């Protein structure tokens, strides 16, 4: 067991543990904090996969912006812990949840022991070719930011435009939504 | 300055008024049933739009009418004040109409007067103590109330529990020395006026 393995185990435990604690924590603020832990650990996993740029984006976007937004809303609405108020849905959803979860575990166990194509095809951690951006038709994985830019502005030009429009639409939508609330309040 | 014509006109118009004096400013005595009317008259039809002061006088426990409310209005046109005295209805539970609907500034003055004298202003929007704490049982500016104060518990029970403090009469020894100014020489010796605690009488226990 080497250093990277240890790191993987640590990050994986944190990511998964954070996620599990998140969905089971009673108070939204603790949930948000566990979520942050989980997300930062995922960023750590990205680092192990040598996707540095994505790791930083993960922290910047998820931990730095999305979760702050969540916390802000939690505080704004002053949401307390969920009360003991039981709902009919809870039992059903509990069953469904447990079922789904067990299916997933079985699936992943299968993956471990089964010699599926994925596990065979890859030579475990292929060496990186840092010098070329493209290899034939394909974009080559690289740790450099430059290759990201290259990929985004060549092959994925259309998606990035669409994403831009999506963000714009979201922004307009949010503004309209929050405006409407204020007007209703005044009436 | 307020001239004689103005006073005459005022007295003719309002028969419930009577002239008391006109030394430093025009002093009128007003019937308590009409004093709200008079206040709104001064505000709306005359130019006395600034209520500068409202307070009360305690004429002493033996007085026929114990409490009277005194009010000062200022006119920016006449550059002068009008003082209005109103006598309160009852000596035990003095009451009078509030003029805070006409002069919003009267609001706090009336609360203070209530706080200090116990004169209740009816129709006041928020008639409660303003300077002393809400549970304080006495009205300090009444004549029978000693300057030194009367033993009462402190408003905060938890603090009392720790510190064992309470509202105690203030020691008057060495306090303001005042002579009565009349009577035999031995009595007119200056002495601490409030005698809750002097050399002669011990601090009340």
């Amino acid at each position: 067991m080497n250093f990277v393995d240890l790191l993987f185990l640590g990050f994986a435990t944190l990511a998964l543990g954070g996620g599990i604690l998140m969905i089971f924590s009673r108070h939204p603020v603790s949930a948000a904090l566990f979520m942050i832990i989980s997300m930062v650990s995922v960023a750590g996993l990205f680092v192990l996969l040598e996707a540095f740029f994505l790791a930083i984006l993960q922290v910047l976007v998820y931990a730095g912006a999305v979760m702050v937004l969540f916390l802000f809303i939690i505080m704004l609405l002053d949401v307390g812990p969920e009360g003991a108020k039981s709902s009919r849905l809870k039992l059903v959803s509990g069953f469904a949840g447990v079922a789904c979860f067990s299916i997933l575990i079985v699936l992943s166990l299968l993956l471990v022991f089964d010699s599926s194509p994925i596990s065979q095809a890859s030579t475990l951690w292929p060496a990186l070719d840092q010098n070329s951006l493209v290899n034939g038709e394909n974009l080559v994985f690289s740790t450099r930011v430059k290759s990201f830019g290259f990929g985004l502005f060549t092959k994925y030009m259309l998606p990035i435009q669409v994403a831009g429009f999506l963000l714009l639409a979201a922004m307009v939508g949010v503004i309209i939504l929050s405006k409407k609330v204020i007007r209703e309040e005044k009436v | 300055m307020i001239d004689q014509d103005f006073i005459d006109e005022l007295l003719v118009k309002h028969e419930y008024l009577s002239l008391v004096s006109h030394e430093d400013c025009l002093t009128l005595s007003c019937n308590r049933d009409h004093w709200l009317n008079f206040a709104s008259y001064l505000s709306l039809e005359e130019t006395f739009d600034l209520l500068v002061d409202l307070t009360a006088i305690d004429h002493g426990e033996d007085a026929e009418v114990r409490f009277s409310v005194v009010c000062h209005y200022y006119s920016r046109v006449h550059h002068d004040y009008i003082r209005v005295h109103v006598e309160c209805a009852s000596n035990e539970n003095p009451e009078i109409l509030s003029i805070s609907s006409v002069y919003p500034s009267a609001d706090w003055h009336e609360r203070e007067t209530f706080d200090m004298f116990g004169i209740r202003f009816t129709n006041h929007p928020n008639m409660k103590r303003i300077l002393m704490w809400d549970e304080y049982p006495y009205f300090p500016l009444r004549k029978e109330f000693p300057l030194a104060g009367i033993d009462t518990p402190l408003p905060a029970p938890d603090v009392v529990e720790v510190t064992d403090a309470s509202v105690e009469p203030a020691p008057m020894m060495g306090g303001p020395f005042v002579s009565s100014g009349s009577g035999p020489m031995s009595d007119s010796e200056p002495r601490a006026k409030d005698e809750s605690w002097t050399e002669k009488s011990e601090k009340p226990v």
Partner: protein
Amino acid sequence: MIEFMQSLEIWQILAIKIVFALMMIGAVMTMAGYSVLAERKVSALMQGRLGPNRTVLPIIGSVPIIGPFLQGLGIFQPLADGLKFLFKEEIVPGHVNKIYYYLAPIIALVPALTTMTVLPFGEFFTGAGETIPLMLADLDVGILFILAVSSLGVYGIVLAGWSSNSKYPFLGGIRSSAQMISYELAMGLSLLPIFLWVSKPGVEVSALSLVEIVNSQHQANWLLLVQPVSALIFLIALFAETNRLPFDMPESETDLVGGFHTEYGSFKFGIFFVAEYAHIVIGSAIFTIIFLGGWHFLPWMSDPWPANWVGTILGVGWFLTKTVGLIFFFIWIRWTLPRFRYDQVMDLGWTKLLPLALANLLFYIVLVTWLDQSAL
């Protein structure tokens, strides 16, 4: 040097890095502690006062000339203040949310110290004519790393405000989270033109690397001169991110008493206190690196110091000088300007700085494209 490093085991490299990291933490914390003193001394200077000058260690104080001189400078004041926190009773109010209450100061301090791992503060000249930047980790996305990690700092404040379970801290926490989200945007946008400007076609090294940004200013324009608008926006955003007056919403003393740290006393408050100044120190260092040419001497001039260890020391010293100058600027502003109101801060961020940053970005996109086209 490189061979030496490569010959080491991973744990040995780790150990060396940890030692360096501790040294840097020490340096930053000391600077933070003494910027508190600087704040007190500079404010005293501006207000015609003297500032702390009575505290002195018994033995040093009796040294003839140096003792009184150091005493007059108030050198020992931070020592007393910092240590006092250790010996003060730790009050934990009964109504707080304990875990987060303890966690918050640490979360506030850690990001500030983490960002310094990618901060270059000088360069080391090897005998072979190579120059190695002095930093803990040369990340090619250094600036993004700094943005990412410093954006985590807000959690400390938000958590402190929330866990105190008291109204003033809560308001402080809410204000700060909104403020920091708003200004991060403008800060990021103000940096984009820098990358555009620094990265040249065909160059392999990413322009997101801080070392690259510093070196691009060697014997050339400082970026402050090339992109004054970016520098201005970045500086304003920096003020907002470090919660300094005129943007000290989270702790505005006159209306929120102490803001998010109202319920904090003794050591935990001390950590907040130091964290605030650590943010300032790091922020000043970043501004120096990006806009003021880092450790390089003056714009359009080559460094006057020799390419050996003397040069290294002089370079680091020059870098520190610039940083300290910026810290002074921070203090200067604080004691000169009144404070914004909360909604005015948001207004400034969203309706003034953000459009300005966008316009600035567009302008430089056009400019850089035009320059590149005409160069080809």
